[in-house]
Every structure is written in C-alpha cells, then in structure tokens.
C-alpha cells in the first residue's frame, strides 16, 4: 500500500436493490454459516483482509488484495460467488457492481449511514454490518486496515443516527398507523387492539403493535379459522365476528382490513359504541379497499378514523423529511472520510518520520559516545544527553509536522516530498511501506 487515497488498495464487489430485483438478490444471499465457509476461501485466493455483508437487500464483499495493485476482476470474484451459491443462470455479471479505492470506502460509509438502503435511513443495516464484521473476526480475515475502516463506518452510522433525523418518522403504512396510535395514547401496553380481517397490511400493523407492547390483541374474521391461524403467529385471542359492536366497546384501537364492497362498520354503530364506552377515545385504522368504516364516523367526538390515504400522507411527509436530511448525512460522511484518509495517509508518512528520527538519533548517539569522555562530572554528561536530544528534537520538529499535516495535499506532491526527504538524508527507500 504505497499509494495515496485515490489508489487505496481496497475493492468491493456486490449486488443490491439498485442492480437486481429480489428474485435475483435472494440467489446470492449468504447465511452466517455460508459466510464462515466463504471468507477463508476468498482470503486464500485474493485477499489479505476481507469481510462480507449479506442482507435481503444486498450482498457485498470488502477486501484488501493480497498482492499490491492486483485487484481481483469482477468476473473471477463474481463467478466465485455465483458458484458458491449455485446461482448460475439466475445471476449474471450485469447484476454485480465493483468499486475500488476511495469509491469503495465512500460506498461503505453510505451503506452504514442508511442513505444507500432500500428504505431510506434504515436502522437495521448497522447491526447487519456488525454481524458481518464479527463473522470476519471469528474467521480471522480482518486486519488493521479493515478493522479501522469498519470502525469508521460504525462511527458514521452512529453519528448519522444521533446528529440527523434520517431514521425518524414512519415510512410504511403499517408503522405510520402505530406512530399515529402513539400520538393518541400514552402507553400502548395499557391499551387493547382489535384486528378485523386478515389482510396483509392489517396483519403487519397488528404485528407492529405487538412489537410496541400492546396490552391485549383480539383478532376477528368472518372465517374463524383464519383468525385462529393469525393468533398462532401474533398471539392474542379470537373474538366473535358477530359481536363486533360489543368488542369495539372494549378496545382502544381497531384495525379493519376486510375485502367487502360495503362498509362493515357504520357511523350509527360507532355512535352506539361510543355511548357504551363512556366516550373513551377510539382510534380506527381502516386499511380496507373499498373502505370498511363509514367515513362520516370521523365526525363523532373522540373517534379518530384514519384510512389508507391519511396513512400514505404521513408516509410521504416522513419520506420528504428524511430526504431533506441527506445533505447533513453527506456532510458527516465527508468528515469521516477525511479522518479515515488522514489515518491512511499517516500509514504512508509514518515510516519516513520513524526513519528520520532513527537516523538523527543514531548520529546523536555516535557523536555523544565520541565526545562524552571530555566531560568529567556526571551532571555534565547528563546535560550533554539532554542538550543534544533537544537539538535533534527541534531540528526534526518542522519536517515531522510538515509530513503529518500533508494528508490533504495531492498524492504527487506528497510522494515527491517524501522522496526528496529520503534522498537528502539517505534513508532506505524500502522502508516507506506500511506493513
């Protein structure tokens, strides 16, 4: 690794939601066990360090080629992945992308930040990245470079989550419904919900409510067995479909997701429900198309009726807010890239600085040995050590600072400076390579 940041010897090869549809991506999905098997094989063939991230939206390999400047071709590594998953015929080279050097680092930081995710601001990606890193550590395919790179990527992810609002606000219909429930009720664990019907979004909403610790979940369906099937995966208990009015009197949240040409809940029915429940607030999420609840019911006091359009409105609004945060995220990525490059550059200049200091120290020590006997007292000898060390330290201060602070300069200037310095002082050129 003797070059500058533009030619950093790192490569990433992968497939993601931008380059391939789900049916193709899933063919290259690696389980933890498969990653454990694959990492040592890749290290053996191409890399001195490598790790792999595999999620439902992306599979990516980050590696440091073991032979300098000899980056593995997408063809060979891609073919290796396809073969490893027996995905020939499903995945083609066009589905794969490869990035090198600074672009690869930039890409990893974007992934960690969540702005490269299918769901903008996705918070799960950081833990998936961590899982990939842990597997690589377990298989000992992580070295100093990737260790530092992944730590920087974590920092990007953490900073983005604390310093920006990219992960805030629900961006799915089902989660928007739960978010809305949290704007009405203080503590969902003290509330109960009723799911009417077995529609997919309704089920997902009930699942989110369960995840948020809803106190009690009831499920009702015209076909009782369908409700019982859902109970098996969601928990809760089955309510009689014929007793809808009674059940609605007892719960705080109602989710309707029924295929029906006519509304299954009328405004007059809900007026009766509100009387019976002493006007306690009732939140109704109507996900049915056509709508399951008469829209005029929203006029009833303490009834909060929201349909698909209202929830889509929340989702769109939150998505716009997240998009507005992208410049802030990019600024964080830029800051972390600079810091990473500074560290990387120090790998280049550190050997020269060390050589320079060693060279001067050797000269100092040899001169001190030659002349130390001219000084009789122990105090004078001590003073000689001190003074010569100080002189060397002061002489080296400016060139050391200049080398350390030069990481923002063009590579050519930096390399020229290192070369001149090494030539002037006769330093061994081979030492200018980080291990």
């Amino acid at each position, binding site marked *: 690794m003797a070059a500058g940041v533009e030619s950093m010897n790192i490569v990433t090869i992968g497939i993601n939601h931008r380059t391939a549809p789900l049916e193709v991506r899933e063919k290259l999905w690696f389980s933890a066990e498969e990653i454990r098997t694959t990492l040592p094989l890749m290290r053996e063939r191409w890399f001195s360090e490598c790790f792999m991230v595999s999620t439902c939206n992306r599979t990516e390999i980050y590696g440091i080629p073991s032979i300098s400047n000899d980056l593995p071709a997408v063809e060979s590594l891609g073919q290796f992945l396809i073969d490893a998953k027996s995905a020939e015929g499903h995945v083609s080279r066009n589905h794969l992308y490869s990035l090198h050097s600074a672009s690869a680092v930039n890409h990893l930081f974007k992934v960690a930040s969540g702005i490269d995710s299918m769901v903008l601001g996705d918070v799960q990606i950081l833990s998936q990245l961590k899982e990939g890193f842990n597997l690589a550590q377990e298989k000992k395919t992580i070295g100093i470079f990737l260790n530092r790179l992944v730590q920087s990527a974590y920092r990007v992810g953490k900073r983005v989550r604390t310093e920006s609002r990219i992960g805030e606000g629900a961006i799915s219909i089902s989660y928007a419904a739960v978010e809305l429930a949290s*704007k009405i*009720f*203080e503590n969902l664990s003290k509330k109960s919900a009723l799911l009417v019907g077995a529609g997919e979004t309704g089920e997902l909403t009930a699942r989110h409510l369960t995840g948020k610790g809803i106190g009690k979940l009831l499920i009702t369906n015209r076909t009782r067995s369908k409700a019982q099937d859902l109970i098996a995966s969601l928990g809760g208990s089955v309510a009689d479909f014929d007793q809808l009015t009674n059940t609605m009197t007892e719960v705080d949240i109602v989710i309707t997701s029924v295929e029906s040409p006519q509304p299954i809940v009328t405004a007059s029915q809900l007026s009766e429900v509100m009387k019976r429940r002493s*006007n*306690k607030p009732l939140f109704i999420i109507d996900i049915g198309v056509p709508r399951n609840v008469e829209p005029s019911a929203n006029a009833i006091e*303490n009834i909060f009726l929201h349909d698909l359009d*209202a929830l889509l409105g929340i989702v769109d609004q939150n998505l716009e807010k997240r998009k507005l945060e992208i410049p802030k995220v990019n600024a964080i990525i830029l800051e972390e890239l600079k810091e990473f490059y500074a560290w990387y550059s120090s790998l280049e200049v550190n050997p020269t600085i060390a050589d320079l200091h060693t060279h001067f120290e050797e000269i100092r020590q040899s001169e001190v040995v030659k002349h130390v006997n001219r000084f009789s007292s122990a105090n004078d000898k001590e003073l000689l050590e001190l003074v010569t060390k100080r002189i060397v330290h002061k002489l080296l201060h400016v060139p050391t600072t200049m080398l350390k602070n030069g990481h923002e300069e063009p590579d050519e200037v930096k390399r020229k400076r290192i070369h001149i310095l090494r030539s002037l002082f006769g330093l061994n050129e081979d030492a200018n390579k980080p291990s």
Partner: protein
Amino acid sequence: MIIDVLTVFLPLLYGATVWLYAKAFFGDAANAKGFKTPLLVLTVVSHAAYLILRTTAFNHPPITTISEIMSLIAFSMGVAYLVIEFLTRVKNTGYFILIPAFFFQLGSSAFIQDLTKVNPVLESNLLGIHVSAALVGYTAITISAVYGFLYLMLYHNIKSKRFGVIYSKLPNLETLERMSFVSTVLGFFFISIAIVIGFVWLPKAYESFSYFDAKLVGTLTVWVLYGIGLVARRMLGWQGRKIMILSLAVFVISFFSLTAINLFFTSFHNFY
C-alpha cells in the same frame, strides 16, 4: 445594587429561555434542546433570589403592588412548569407556558417601585402564605388551560389529518390531558389553601370584612366550578375533548369574572 441589576436581567433571562424553548419546539436546534432546561433553572433561581432580596430589603413580602404581584406570578409559572417538566419528562411544551411568564416579568420590571413603607397589615406572614397559595393556584389553572388548549389543537390536527409541527412536536393526547388534569388538581388544592387561610385571617385583619365581598364570591365560584369539573371527571367519567373544553371554559369565565371584579367592584380585599 443587586436588586436593580436583577430587575433588568430577569426579563432578559425569561426572554432567552422562551427563545430557546421556541427554537427547540419549532426547529431542531440541538443546542437549544440541551441548554433550555438549565437556563430555566438559572432563571428561576435568580428570580427566587430577587424575591428574597426584595423581601429583606423592603421589609415586606413582594405582594404590595401590581408589579410585585406580576413578578410573583411569573416566578410561580416558571417554578410550576419546571416541576411539571421534571415530573412528566415532557420537555416540548415550555414555550407555551413560559411566554406569559416572560410578559408578566417584563411588565413588572418596567413599572416596579421600591416601597419601604406599606400598610402594616401587608407585613403579615399569614398574608404572604394566603397570597402565595392563591397565586400558585391561579398559575396552575392557567397552566392547565394552556395544556387544554394544546390538547384541542392536537385533537383537531389528528382529526383533520394535518400532520405538521403541532402533530410532530407535541406529546400525545393522553399525556396532554393528564398534564392538564394534574395542573387542575394542584390549582384546586392551592386555591383551597388560600380560601381557608383567607377565612381564618381576613376577618381578624380587616374590620370591613364581608363574606359577600365580590372577590370572595368570585374566588369561591371559580373553586366550585373547578370542583364540579373534577367530580364530573371522576364520577361521570368525562374525558377527552369534552373535559378539555370544560376546563378552558371555566378558565375563561374565571379570568374575566375576576378581572371584572377587580376593575368594577370596590372591596376591602385590595392590597394596593
């Protein structure tokens, strides 16, 4: 003199606190979020020192002039909000509560006088407790009304599917209702104390005392109305929009009736 310095600085402190709470509510300033509560604590502590210094320097509790009363109201609003914020951990509503406090202190600082000679009856400590309890009580019901107002704003935003700043920044409806209720209970409690002390002390202090005095009748009416509201909530299970409208209506009635009584009726019950 420290009192003069604080007279000038207190409105500035309240203004800065309101500004930080507004920035935290309407914007996303991380600094404002971090500094607003500490600044409020500093403001309230400075205000407490100011009131103590005035009491010591002028030898009477700061309840002898309208300006002193206004300063006391600002102080009690600051303290009450700080306690609510501490108890509920809801930190997004300070702007709405502290803005009246700022204007009360601004008005007080503009017109306050340093009186050393006052009616001897006003130097009584019992009067201090009576007035302080009444002020804390009225402050609490004012805060209750603010939360009631915020509840109704959020209620209508959710009902009409408007998901803007009000929706995203205010706490949930149940929390707002609870905060309004707790404030009402506190207000009712302190007004009860003020009434009890008043009935014990006022007849002894004033020869012209009358149970039919307009201010007494007005205060008792406010107390009874709030009492009815609390009973309705407890016994009839009223909640949500209805109880919030009732709370706001009682507050508006109280505010206008007590203002009218102060302006148009003569009373033995005037301290200034």
